[in-house]
């Protein structure tokens, strides 16, 4: 099968990008459709122009495909890097992956940029030609969502929590501006935020063909739009950023809600989980313990500071500082978590 690579230019920045088709194409199909596809893409992306295009056999694109591990048959995980978003990593910092059934594929999360999402798309296409029917988004944050358009182009329906669409829409501009600044023009090239097509209010089962995924939306925890995905076949739950390992947890929802959710993780028969950051596989439900431990201590310290009458400014200087342990990116995330926890808990 063949993929279409198009050199796209925006102002003086040019880069070759992969433009997926809704169904895999052979060489003749790829070449027959390439003009329409590249023209269509440019029309939908203001300011871009086509400089060149070619159809390339998927087998030759291995070095561009994301590295994935098949942790269980048909269950692939790509481990993001535990480091800040930057030009060099193009924002490849979140765990993503895909699950293959008999009839279709579901991709989980899309990375921070078109570049990262294209790599994941190529990883899918190097394993299977089945249609990518779903892109499942675990929550709104840009390191998990900004590459989504690639999968939309590949024909996927974008599904998230029912609260996802509004949450992303209201942050779209800020996310876009921030990511562009952090990634730089080259790594950000071609990235355009798209919103979810449909939301899950409570729970829903989707079928990939002899493989059912149970989607579950949660009350406000890490964010107000967290979604978990349970693949019974591999006995694995995709936790999104409800679970962090290695990378300091980031609070953008409700510390009370998050603690409650992790304290009550359902014994649903699952054995494994995929955390949003850090190692791509952990035990279910024990993999949540470090996150829960951090949040519980943070909440305790915050409540204590509030009770002692400490102002936000005073409390921020010490809350959580002794929880550093082996967490990475701690100095950046802990003070922000402390702020979030304080402004939530001061209303108790």
């Amino acid at each position: 099968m063949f993929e279409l690579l198009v050199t796209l230019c925006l102002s003086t920045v040019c880069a070759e990008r992969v433009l997926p088709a809704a169904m895999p194409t052979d060489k003749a199909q790829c070449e027959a459709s390439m003009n329409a596809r590249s023209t269509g893409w440019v029309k939908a992306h203001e300011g871009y122009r086509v400089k060149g295009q070619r159809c390339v056999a998927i087998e030759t694109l291995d070095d561009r495909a994301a590295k994935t591990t098949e942790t269980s048959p048909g269950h692939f995980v790509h481990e993001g890097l535990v480091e800040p978003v930057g030009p060099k990593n193009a924002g490849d910092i979140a765990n993503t992956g895909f699950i293959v059934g008999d009839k279709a594929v579901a991709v989980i999360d899309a990375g921070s940029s078109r570049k990262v999402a294209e790599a994941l798309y190529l990883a899918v296409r190097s394993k299977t030609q089945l249609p990518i029917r779903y892109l499942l988004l675990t929550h709104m944050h840009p390191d998990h969502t900004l590459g989504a358009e690639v999968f939309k182009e590949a024909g996927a329906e974008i599904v998230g929590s029912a609260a996802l669409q509004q949450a992303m829409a209201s942050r779209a501009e800020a996310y876009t501006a921030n990511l562009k600044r952090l990634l730089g023009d080259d790594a950000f090239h071609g990235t355009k935020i798209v919103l979810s097509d449909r939301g899950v209010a409570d729970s829903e089962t989707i079928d990939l063909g002899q493989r059912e995924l149970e989607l579950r939306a949660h009350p406000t925890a890490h964010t107000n739009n967290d979604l978990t995905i349970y693949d019974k076949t591999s006995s694995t739950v995709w936790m999104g950023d409800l679970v962090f390992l290695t990378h300091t947890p980031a609070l953008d929802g409700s510390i009370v809600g998050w603690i409650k959710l992790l304290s009550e993780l359902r014994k649903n028969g699952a054995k494994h989980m995929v955390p949003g950051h850090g190692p791509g596989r952990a035990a279910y439900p024990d993999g949540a313990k470090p996150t829960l431990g951090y949040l519980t201590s943070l909440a305790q310290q915050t409540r204590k500071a509030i009770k002692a009458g400490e102002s936000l400014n005073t409390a921020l200087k010490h809350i959580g500082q002794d929880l550093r342990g082996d967490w990475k990116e701690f100095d950046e995330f802990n003070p922000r978590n402390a702020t979030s926890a304080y402004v939530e808990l001061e209303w108790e």
Partner: protein
Amino acid sequence: MKHQLAIAACATLLLSLPAQAGGTGQFVLPPYATIQNQIVAGEAWKDLREMVAGDAKLLDGEEILSFDAPVQAFDAATVPFSISQRSNSGKRIAELTVVVDDNPMPIAAKFEFGALMGDIHLESRVRYDVFSNIRAVAKTASGETYMVGRFVKAAGGCSTAVSRDLNVALSTMGQMKLKEFRDPNAVSTKAEGTVREVQLMIRHPNFTGMQVKTGTLDYIDPRFLDKVVVKLGDDVLFRMTGGFSISENPSFRFKFKDNGAGAITVYARDTEGAEFTHTFPLNSGV
């Protein structure tokens, strides 16, 4: 994980100015120790100065106030600052304007203080759009103008979507809470003139107009508290005229001298004309 995104990738503007002595010119330990984030010169202030202080001479505010704002804030939508008047300043501050120079709406709030506020102790929180100075311009009852400021590294806070959940923010708008802080070592007293400390919290999204509506690229219209009046009995503690640079769920922590009235009444109004009034009986000293 938007937080790391909120931190500008700008080159770090590390301000390693030495601590300054308190205007005495002598080499003595200043009363306010090291200031890590002294104010920096900037274009925006040139225009703002006249608006805020007219042609008044700006005296060094460090002499009568201590001002605390973080060197760097990781949540640019919630940047805390506090102003504390030195007990021996001998001045009565009648007005105080808080300015975030480089915000789209730089004047965050103007406070007019009643006599019961005594030495001013005030804490609140502001949004930060880009790295900027924050300054407090204080006018005394005797007509002098003092200025004090800090430079804070924080960015993106004005376009940050309000709240974790917009629907909750809208449905709880106008709720208020008043917290009293009691010094556990102080003898409980009803005596008039006793200094008390409270925190007034008001639920309001304080929309900046830079946030985007659901499923569209339309902006949510700005809607923020533009007037807050806090009274102790019949005496005004302060009036605030505010802008959207004040953070969501505005919070004001302050001290005042008790007049024995026994209750604080708060009136708040937003730019849509919605009015919120609450009366809080005081427990301190009872």
